[in-house]
């Protein structure tokens, strides 16, 4: 437990340093695009008392001063597969965002969608020494959670206390200071492949920047796309990205489950490419301009020039009807949604009080998805767009930027993680205690 404590605490310290400097970069490493936002944290001191306005729920705490997007390279299924290519793509995005911001950024918070995220629910309880709950007790109860064997080479990405229970009262957000005998907690832990983290770390190091935090993009998409009551009552956010589709389930403003399906918009593109015998670039263009999932009678008559570069007139003048295109796209989209349904069922989503599902991410912009998705996912489906944040360019407000915006919100208001609490006293290695005693002896 201590090693990820240390690494995560180091990242947290770096994030604090970055917030103190006021500038931090947000990097969304996706399969189809790499987006970089540069945030400036103004802090609450920019408001005078006489203004009468404080930072309302944190929206005013930061503003986006630089934004850039570049086509992703070397990333497959949300994981770095060709390091040099990815590094260059990151460099391109970061440089453009820095240029727009006009400041140099040294700290970066990244999110990635792939790397096989796996969710674990942990539970632990302690008997309280004193009648009221102290910070130390919270740390102890968190430490008492029995960590499952999540496998060699896996890395804990998030470990958030979701619920506290004191004696028979459950659903406490903050048990500190309350009186009881037995403190129990539920925790949500999420692990990903350590290699993916290492690769990401390496790429960012090669760009002369420091990694100040990592988040899962399904989680950050949920932060930005779910409205407050959805997060409170329970909802699933489906981030339909290019290479993978992330699923996160929120309840009581905490993520309680996350998963990812290794299917995404690029699979639709490659289906079109294969089905129509066109290049991937053409297929992507056709998908974004003419794509859809619900065919109507009108679509049989609409012919799409699909072109070609062979020089053969017959080949280069091919056309398909839009209905044919939809016929190629729809099965794949259905497959993705069915896979999502499966994962949700596996997670026990149907037991949640609210069955709200929010689709976001670049692939959620397919016309007609709002008609198709309810057939597979249930009635309460909506297409979500990320929250508006101050200073975000119009071009970066679309659903494709949900995880990016969510990561910015996450940077401004990180949720308490396991390692944010004090380490319980008994967990400290004896050596450091001895060192502390020695320090006191030497200095007093």
């Amino acid at each position, binding site marked *: 437990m201590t090693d990820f404590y240390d690494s995560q605490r180091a990242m947290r310290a770096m994030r604090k340093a970055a917030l103190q400097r006021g500038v931090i970069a947000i990097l969304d490493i996706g399969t189809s695009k790499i987006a970089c936002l540069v945030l400036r944290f103004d802090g609450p001191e920019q408001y005078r008392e006489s203004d009468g306005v404080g930072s309302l729920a944190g929206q005013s705490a930061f503003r986006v001063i630089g934004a850039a997007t570049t086509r992703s390279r070397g990333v497959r299924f949300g994981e770095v597969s060709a390091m040099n290519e990815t590094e260059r793509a990151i460099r391109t995005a*970061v440089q453009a965002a820095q240029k727009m911001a006009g400041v*140099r950024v040294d700290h970066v918070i990244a999110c990635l969608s792939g790397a096989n995220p796996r969710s674990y629910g942990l539970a632990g309880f302690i008997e309280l020494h004193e009648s009221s709950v102290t910070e130390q007790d919270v740390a102890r109860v968190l430490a008492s959670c029995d960590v499952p064997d999540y496998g060699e080479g896996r890395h804990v990405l998030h470990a958030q206390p979701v619920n506290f229970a004191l004696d028979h009262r459950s659903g406490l957000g903050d048990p500190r200071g309350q009186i009881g005998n037995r403190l129990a907690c539920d925790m949500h832990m999420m692990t990903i492949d350590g290699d993916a983290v290492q690769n990401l770390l390496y790429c960012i190091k090669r760009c002369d920047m420091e990694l100040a935090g990592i988040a899962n993009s399904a989680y950050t998409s949920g932060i930005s796309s779910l409205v407050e009551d959805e997060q409170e009552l329970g909802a699933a956010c489906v981030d339909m990205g290019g290479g993978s589709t992330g699923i996160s389930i929120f309840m009581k403003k905490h993520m309680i489950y996350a998963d990812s399906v290794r299917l995404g918009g690029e699979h639709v593109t490659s289906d079109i490419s294969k089905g129509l015998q066109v290049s991937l670039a053409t297929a992507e263009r056709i998908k974004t301009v003419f794509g859809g999932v619900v065919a109507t009678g009108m679509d049989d008559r609409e012919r799409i020039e699909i072109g070609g*570069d*062979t020089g053969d007139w017959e080949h280069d003048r091919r056309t398909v009807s839009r209905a044919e295109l939809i016929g190629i796209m729809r099965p794949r989209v259905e497959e993705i949604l069915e896979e999502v349904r499966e994962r949700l069922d596996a997670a026990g989503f149907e037991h949640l009080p609210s069955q709200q599902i929010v689709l976001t991410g670049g692939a959620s912009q397919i016309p007609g998805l709002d008609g198709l998705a309810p057939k597979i996912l249930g009635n309460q489906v909506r297409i979500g767009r990320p929250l508006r944040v101050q200073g975000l360019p119009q071009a970066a407000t679309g659903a494709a930027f949900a995880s990016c915006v969510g990561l910015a919100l996450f940077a401004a208001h990180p949720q308490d993680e396991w390692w944010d609490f004090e380490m319980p006293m008994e967990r400290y290695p004896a050596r450091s205690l001895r060192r502390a005693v020695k320090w006191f002896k030497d200095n007093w």
Partner: protein
Amino acid sequence: MQQVDYRNSRRDPAPSRWAYRMHRLWLTPYVPRLLRLGVPVAISALSLIYVFSQPENRTAFTDMIAEIRRTVAERPEFMVTSMTIENASEELTADIKEILPMDFPISSFDIDLVAMQKVVEQLDAVARADLRVRPGGVLELAVTERLPAVVWRAPGLLELLDGQGRRVAALEERGRRGDLPLIAGIGADTEVPEALKLYAAAGPIVDRLRGIVRMGERRWDIVLDRDQRIMLPEDNPVIALERVMALHEAQDLLERDLAAVDMRNPDRATLRMRPDAVANLHMIKGIELGDILQ
């Protein structure tokens, strides 16, 4: 035959590592300002240092500065063409002209009035000198002359002194300034104010006064004609002299055949008579005694 795919063989849009680093360096605070301001300043400073390290450049530069200054200083507005000396005797005027050699016209930038004032005030005959350059290019020198109060005679020199004992001028012979009192002796020049007080106190016998002599640099002798002397004490000589004057008023003391009135001990005035007077006194006493004896 394959067509070349221009779209996919485009140049890599990513910046090179070095371009990226340079860009980041440029965005570092203070670096742009340092480059925009510091580098030109450093280059110009270095080039200036290089240029001035060559002696010929230095001399050329100083020559140029001197030339510019000269052209300004030699404008007719700044030229001084003559000097007037006011309140000075002809002798002093000649002296001043001798020690202030000026070849007119001269620029007022080149005149150091303070130094000139010091030079003029070094003259013994000058109590105070005021210099200014009047409009019209005239250097005006207003002199306050030192007025001689006594003639001082010491072994080998004869000088005029003012009331404070400062030297005014040398004197060839005493007769030229017969109007001034005479003091004599080494150290007399340092006690001129006292000597003048003694002169004032010796008013009744001023026509008989030959001079006042400083004896042993500590006290005064008043020398009268007929080789008479009044020897005064070190302390309060004026009071002692006044007592002698009172005696003289009452009994015509000094008209008698005395060699000296010795007041060195103020409590006991002593008269020194001449040998003839002593003989006469003895004779008179003898006659008086003889009369009694006879």
